[in-house]
Structures are given as C-alpha cells and as structure tokens.
C-alpha cells in the first residue's frame, strides 16, 4: 500500500514551505494595500496630507500590442523620472482581455487611478461616478493648449450629463486613429498600372477593375496567389456604407437604419468583391492564411492601414502608401477615426498626479515625441502632426492622408453614441453568411434590423435609468 514515511515527509515539507510562504504572502498583501488603496477607506493615512517626501503610487491600466506596450512603458518611465515622488504601477493587458478586466475592476471597486476607456462607455462611467472631471485640472495646467489638440479627439470625451460631445472633459484622447487605405506601391509598379491618385478616390467600379487586374495567378496552378484586396468586414464596411450615404443609426441615435437600400447596396458590394469579382481570397483561403499576413507578404494590392500598424509595416518587403477609400454614390470618401480615452478614477487619492500623468501621455511634447518615434500613433498635437506629415521621406509618404481623415472626413464608430454598443456588435456577429454569398445583403439587413433595434432600445432604457 502506501509508504507511510513518504507521506509524512511530504506533509511536513508542505507545512514548512507553506508557513514560509504565508509569511511572504502576508507582507505582499500589506504592501499592496498601502500602495493601491483606491478606496481610501482602508487607509488611515488620510490624515497624513501631502508630505512631499512621500511616494505617491498611481496605477495605470492600459492595453495594446507589444510594440505599443513597450512604447508606453518607456514614456511612463520618463514621466517617473520627471516626477520623482510619483511611482506608476503598470497593469497592461492584450486588447481582447481589456474590457472585462477594466469593467471587473470598476465593479469590484478597485479602479485603477489612470486607465484607458472607450468613448462609448463615457456616459455610463460619468453617470455612475467612475470618472474624474478633468476640466479644472486641465484649465489650471498652463502647458496644455487644447486648441493644439485634435478637436475631434477631445470632444469624444466631453459630456454635459445629457449629450456626449459637449460639456466638461472626462478623458483625454490617447490618440486619434484614422483608418486609412494602403496600397502596395511596388506591386503597382511591377504590373505597370498607374498609381492611385492620393486626392481623387476611385469609384467603386474603378476599384474593382484595378483589383481585378492585380488578382493574378503567378505560379500557374490555377489559383490566384496575389489578390486585389481582402477586407475585414468589421473594420472596412463603414467606409463603404458611409460613402454610399447610409449609416447604422439615425441622427437622433434612437433608430437603427440598416434597412436603408443604400446600406444594403454597400454591404452587397463588399460581399461581391469576394463572390462576384473574386478579387479577395475566399473565406476558406483567408482561413489558412489571413489577409493581414497576405498583405504583409506582399500578396495583396490594397489593405487598410492604421497609425498603430506603422511600426510593424516599417519592415515590409515592399513600399506602401496611403490613399482615400473608394467612393460610393456620394462621390466622397469616408472612413472612421478610432480613439481611446485616458481617464482618471474619481476616487483616486492623487488626482493632481493622475491628471499630470494623463497630460504627459496625451498632451505633452516630450511624451508625444517618444510615442510618435515608436511609430505607434500619430501626434495628438496639431503643430507636431503637421510637421510630422510633411516629412515624406519616411514610410508611408502620404501621411497627410491620416491628418485629412482626422480633420476632415473621418467619423466615429456608431457604437460611440449609445449607452452600450451591443446593438452594433450584433450586426457583425452573424454577418459571415453575407460575405460568403449565402445570404443577400438585402435579406440580411431586413432580418437583422429588428434584433438590433431591440438591443438599442434596451441601451436607451438603461441610459435613462442610470441618470436617475
């Protein structure tokens, strides 16, 4: 049966180790408490006011790809060097996990002092007292010139209690993320096709024609191994819908409008790129090697480019540049400009320092220079951005397109306007059959509209309640 001696040794070993570790654990937790202590109630240091020698610890929670994480880490280190009495504890997650992590922290009342949040959550966070009103701090800071920061970005984080887009500032844009269209310049030159005009967008027909010319079978196995394009519907459909004069939601932000024929036309066009014109890899092919990888291998003529891609695209084996998206029936190009806000917890122990960190990351020359150098975003400061875009020696040459999107034709994603984005997300959850050509766009929008409307009504109802 059992070797009694062995069990006894194991047990006593476990006991010893656990006693030692429990000691460590205790210390660990105590240290953590005095460090974070966001609730402020667990601490009895409240009486001990601003002692300049005291180290103030801020937690900063954010997300991003590895390049972005590293870039921000560096800037935070610089901030610490400039503010010797402030220590910043970093909590960083991959993009997919961020929303649940942050929201669990908020409901768990262990809100980080400074954190990224999506503009769509602004109302919920303000109504429930999560976000600190930054207005007075920003006004007091002489180094910040709001006129020199993209108005688009700052306005996303204004809220007056009823309408987003106006009122006090509850967050600063971490960046603005114009989603431009890129093309493989080397491929065009090799094929002898005239380069696209950077100021005059293709029409939809022209776009298909060029894409067809560039969809070729180079190895002669009967299957193309170079494609015109390969859009991800979730991020590219907006450009086609908007430039066709349609939208997901009406101007009162209470009605889902995807059953508009112009909407269906745009969606159908995207599906046709794959099924009718065959200028994109089929769903099967895209599954073995996704379109992003194909673009990076130089097998794709057109592909979306966001500022955050620049560091990765730096080493592409071909030259690429930016152009406006092909224009639909309005004759105008359209796309979205993303943004993430950086806000502070309303319950932070060190509001001054928290806001100082936000300012440093979003509005200071030093911080911005470091981030732009890391090629993870475009400058938040307009004068710096203009200078940056004027330099055509670095890839992509037409950086100006990014700025035009921010200034001129970029829009915010529809989920921003509503209390939550569930209604909008639902649209993309079931869309694959349309892209695969199994369901027509017209049928899809008809069946999806009532479901989305229901979720939107729910969001509106939830918003009403949260105001009380």
């Amino acid at each position, binding site marked *: 049966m059992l070797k009694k001696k062995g069990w006894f040794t194991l047990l006593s070993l476990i006991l010893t180790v656990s006693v030692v570790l429990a000691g460590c654990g205790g210390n660990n937790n105590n240290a953590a408490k005095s460090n974070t202590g966001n609730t402020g109630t667990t601490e009895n240091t409240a009486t001990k006011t601003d002692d300049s020698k005291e180290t103030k610890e801020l937690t900063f929670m954010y997300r991003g790809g590895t390049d972005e994480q590293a870039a921000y880490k560096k800037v935070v280190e610089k901030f610490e060097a400039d503010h010797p009495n402030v220590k910043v504890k970093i909590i960083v997650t991959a993009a*997919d*996990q961020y*929303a*649940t992590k942050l*929201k*669990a922290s*908020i*409901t768990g009342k262990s809100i980080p002092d400074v954190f990224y949040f999506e503009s769509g959550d602004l109302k*919920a966070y303000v109504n*429930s*007292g*999560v976000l600190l009103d930054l207005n007075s701090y920003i006004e007091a800071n002489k180094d910040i010139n709001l006129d020199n920061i993209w108005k688009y970005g700052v306005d996303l984080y204004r809220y007056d209690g009823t309408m987003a887009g106006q009122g006090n500032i509850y967050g600063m844009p971490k960046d603005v993320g114009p989603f431009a269209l890129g093309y493989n310049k080397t491929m065009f030159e090799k094929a002898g096709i005239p380069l696209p005009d950077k100021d005059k967008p293709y029409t939809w027909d022209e776009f298909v024609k060029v894409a067809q010319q560039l969809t070729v079978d180079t190895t002669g196995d009967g299957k193309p191994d170079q494609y015109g394009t390969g859009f991800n519907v979730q991020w590219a459909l907006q450009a086609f819908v908007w430039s066709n004069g349609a939208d997901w939601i009406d101007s009162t932000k209470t009605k889902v409008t995807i059953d508009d024929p112009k909407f269906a036309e745009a969606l159908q066009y995207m599906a046709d790129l794959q099924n009718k014109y065959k200028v994109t890899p089929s769903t*099967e092919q895209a*599954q*073995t*090697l*996704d379109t992003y990888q194909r673009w990076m291998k130089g097998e794709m003529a057109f592909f979306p480019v966001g500022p955050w891609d620049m560091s990765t695209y730096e080493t592409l084996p071909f030259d690429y540049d930016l152009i406006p998206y092909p224009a639909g029936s309005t004759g105008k190009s359209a796309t979205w400009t993303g943004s993430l806000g950086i806000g502070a917890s309303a319950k932070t122990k060190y509001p001054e320092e928290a806001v100082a960190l936000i300012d440093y990351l979003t509005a200071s020359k030093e911080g911005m220079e470091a981030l732009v150098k890391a090629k993870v975003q475009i400058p938040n400061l307009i004068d710096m951005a203009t200078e940056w875009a004027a330099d055509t020696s670095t890839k992509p040459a037409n950086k100006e397109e990014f700025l035009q999107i921010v200034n001129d034709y970029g829009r915010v994603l529809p989920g921003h306007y509503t209390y*939550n984005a*569930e209604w909008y997300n*639902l649209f993309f*959850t*079931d869309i*694959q059959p349309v892209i695969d050509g199994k369901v027509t766009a017209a049928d899809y929008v008809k069946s999806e509209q009532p*479901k989305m409307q*229901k979720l939107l009504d729910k969001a509106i109802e*939830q918003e009403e*309640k*949260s105001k009380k």
Partner: protein
Amino acid sequence: MTTSNLYRKEKIYGFLFILAPLLGLIIFTLYPMLYSIYGSLTDWDGLGQMSFIGLSNFTDLFTDELFHKAVFNTLFMMLGIPIGITLALLLALGLNRGARGTTTFRVIYYVPVISSLAAVSIMWNWAYNGDYGLVNQFLDLFGISGPNWMANKYTVKPALIIMAVWKGLGYTMLLYLAALQSVSRTYYEAAELDGANGFQSFRHITWPMVRPVTFFIVVTNIIGGSQIFTEMNIMTPTGGPEYASASVVFYIWQKAFGSFQMGYASAMAVVLGAFIFVVTLIQFRMNEKSSFDVD
C-alpha cells in the same frame, strides 16, 4: 463523569468541529446563491443600481439569440461525452486483459488529466493553427488539407470536443478500469463454459457491472461540461467565429464583468444552477433505482 455530561460536551465539540465548513457553506455558497436569485430579479448593473424588475430578465433570455447560441454550443460540446466514454471503456477493457505495460499506459493516459487546462488550451490552440499546426500536418500525411480550426465556425466546436476528449480520456478510463477490476473472473469463466461469445459476456456481465459508474461519469461530465469556460477564454477570447464557441459560462462572464449587466448575468447563472440541480436529482433517482435492481 456521567454519560449525560459526556454527551453534552460531545455535542458542543461536535458543533465546534463542523463550524468552519458550515460557516463557509453559508457565507460562500448559500448566501450568494440566494443573492443570485434576488439579483436575477433586478436590473442590477454592478455600479449602484439595483431595482426590482420581476421576471423580465428571464423573459429576455427567451429572445436573446446570443444566449441561445451559447446554450446550443454548450450542449453541442457535450457530444464529446459519449465519444469519450466509448473510447475510455474500450481502452479500459483492453487494459483489463492484463496486457503488457498496463501501469505505464495508465500513467501516460492520465498525464493530460493532471495537466493544467490553461496550458493544454494554449498548446491545442497552436496545434490547430491552419498552416503550421500539428493537427493539419498530421492530416497532411493522409493528403487531407485541414481547415484553420479555430477560425471556422463549423470546425471550432469539433476542435474543442477533440481536445476535451483527449484531456478527459484518462480519468474516465481509470474509473472504468477500477470498476472492471472489481468484476470477478469467475463470471467470465463460467460464461465461457456456457459457450458465450465475447459480445455476449460483455452484454450480460461487463455492462451491468459498469453501468453505475457509467452513470456517474455521464452526470459528472454533464455538470462539468455545462460549466466549460477556460478553453474558450484562452482559445477564442471573443467567443469564436459568429460566437460559435461561446459557452454559457463564457456569456455569463461577459455580461457580468464585461457589460455591467449583473442582474441579467445572475438570471443566466440561476438557470445554469437549476439545470445542474435537475441533472443531479435525476442521478440520485436513477441510482436509487439501479441499486434496487441489484438487490
């Protein structure tokens, strides 16, 4: 010391000794359970608001397509249970014949069981990679070009099932082996003398003997399977293509901690709890019956 005095002392100590688990049960299970039920009747958002709204969370569940999908996915993945049970029983029958290296086989088959689900999920996620994954390279040996398993809504659930079977096989096999070893050899010898073939002795001797443990396995697997979460959280963090791999617990977790709908999430949790309660109750009933049969 008198007996009654002794008994009084024993009473006190008896309560004292079970106090900790009893308190734990009340604080961490019973009270939260009641709170879940209460919360499921409110519009609790986790930020402060919690007003009574009757059963409307439950009626919403009837029309929530994502919930239906999550339920369907969770049930679909339980198809792995009969597959795993069949394989495990066959393996156990093989091992029970006293083949060479039984102990070694037992250990090898059990390694996936003790491996952490997180690490195993990470490994399989990589094994299911469309181009360079182990699975497709293996299929390639037979001239089959496999799909990108985790990115295709038709293959993502089968992929998760295969992984679950792989992970749980050793455990089920072990339980069967223990049951089989308790069957006396003399039964088989007698059957052989009577001229019974292999299948007949399986049907009339082996199967009745392993039926109770089969039942136990089915029920624990259903209970475990209805709480599946880790795999999808790691392998398809957004719920998979068209939400094809989101499970009920995954959806509860998203709603509760990802979109401030604690009340709604509680309603789902209550439904899940009720489901498991019913399954366990059935087990008790059936067990009672089968033990009567044996007697």
